């Protein structure tokens, strides 16, 4: 392909958009709405994950140690926990510290509290406070710990864990379905829009076939049209999402409601992700545009 042909094809693509401006406008609208929703869903899920990690940090496993373990067994246990790669952090709480902690929790004075009686027989077991890299491994780690002879019990606030991982699964599934439906809708709209241009240009396409233009050459202006629609939609979606994101951040900033403030603290700044958003949108827009257009011309290339 020479430079003249290339210029010709790009010019044709742009003029296609203009000839068919109403439908092009509709395609750009639908596609950018679709991209905004996809991008928004992804940012939301990223932020939710970020919040999860915060919660996960607080959600710890307690592994209670038998009272009669020897120092050697204690060291074995430490080494074992150290080696478990699902574990992010662990902290040893001795029997004495555990007692103080328990008394603190109940708000009693160590000197006169209900534990006074146990001064010579501390009932609170030594334990490990363990946090995980991934919250969904909780049950597995508990099982592994409880299988050890030194541990008599390990537990966690399973209900929190289950709720969070369950929520994430549902979010992912619904998000995936919505994204799929939106992508299909954009494809249909773009390909119908380009079908109209193809119809308006069917005479030219027919003549091109007769004078010996290759299918690739005939297809290109329409692919250019689709890709341009995709790129314009990508830029528009980017700007819209930026506006929405900053808008939400502003509202959260202004509000004094505690939970919003804590979410804000763990939210991701747009400046951290804008490049990925833009690249993703441009790539997605280009792909959907090109795919939608190539489907639209097939029928007219058969002569």
């Amino acid at each position, binding site marked *: 392909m*020479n430079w*003249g042909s290339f210029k010709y094809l790009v010019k044709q693509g742009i003029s296609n958009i203009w000839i068919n401006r109403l439908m092009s406008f509709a395609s750009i609208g639908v596609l950018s709405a679709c991209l905004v929703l996809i991008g928004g869903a992804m940012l939301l899920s990223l932020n939710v994950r970020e919040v999860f990690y915060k919660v996960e940090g607080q959600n710890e496993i307690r592994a209670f140690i038998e009272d009669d373990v020897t120092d050697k067994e204690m060291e074995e246990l430490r080494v074992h926990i150290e080696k478990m790669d699902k574990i992010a952090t662990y902290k040893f709480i001795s029997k004495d510290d555990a007692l103080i902690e328990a008394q603190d929790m109940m708000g009693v004075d160590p000197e006169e509290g209900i534990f006074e009686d146990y001064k010579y027989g501390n009932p609170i077991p030594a334990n490990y406070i363990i946090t995980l890299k991934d919250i969904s491994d909780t049950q597995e780690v508990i099982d592994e710990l409880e299988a050890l002879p030194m541990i008599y019990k390990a537990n966690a606030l399973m209900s929190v864990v289950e709720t969070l991982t369950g929520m994430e699964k549902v979010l992912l599934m619904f998000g995936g379905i919505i994204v799929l439906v939106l992508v299909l809708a954009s494809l249909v709209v773009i390909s119908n829009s380009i079908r109209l241009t193809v119809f308006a240009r069917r*005479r030219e396409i027919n*003549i*091109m076939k*007769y*004078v*010996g*233009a290759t299918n690739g*050459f005939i297809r290109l202006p329409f692919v250019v049209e689709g890709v341009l629609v995709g790129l314009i939609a990508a830029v528009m979606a980017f700007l819209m999402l930026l506006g929405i994101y900053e808008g939400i951040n502003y509202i959260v900033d202004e509000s004094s409601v505690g939970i919003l403030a804590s979410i804000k603290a763990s939210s991701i700044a747009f400046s951290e992700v804008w490049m990925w958003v833009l690249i993703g949108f441009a790539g997605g827009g280009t792909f959907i545009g090109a795919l939608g257009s190539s489907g639209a011309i097939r029928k007219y290339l058969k002569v």
Partner: protein
Amino acid sequence: MIEFKGVSKVYPNGTVALNDIDLFIEKGEFVFILGHSGAGKSTLLKLMMREEKATKGTIVVGNYNLTKIKNRQIPYLRRRMGFVFQDFRLIPNLTAYDNVAFAMRVTNIPSREIRKRVPYILHLVGLSNKSRVYPEQLSGGEQQRVALARALAHNPPIIVADEPTGNIDPELSYEIMELLSEINRLGTTILVVTHEQEMVKNFHKRTIKLEDGNILFDTGKQGSTT
């Protein structure tokens, strides 16, 4: 150059348009194809450009065996030919100049060559002064000549014209035939479908007459006596 061997064409609705045709046209020949309406003339041309597939038999055009040709080779087959269609097939929103340039453009001919070649070809068909005019502002004969200019533009070794003088007054159609004859003298193979018996008589070229899908007669190769 062009060869038909036992070629039949039956359209999907059962119409037998061509029936066991044998035909050989050498490089550089000028051939008239005569025949009543519905005799199968256009079908013959459509088979050559692979707009239609033969139902039976083999067709060879230049280096291409059309029975075996792959879809992606068809554009290159068509670039070896220039077509003048019965209904012109010009693009209404392009000027005469652009209609010719368009055909060259879509076959990847460099812009520089297009800018040189188009004015020359329009001059050749006597339309230099109409190059900026749109088809609807041209007379039937002028449109016909734009179509001819388009067929000539890329200098193909074969020119196929379906009734190129159908809408033109006798004087002008004689001129067009002269022009084709001139191009033929420079070595281009030319096939012309026509109704005009007079024209055929005047030009003393090989004449093939079709009737109901059969070759009624073929005068064979003629000396150029014009």
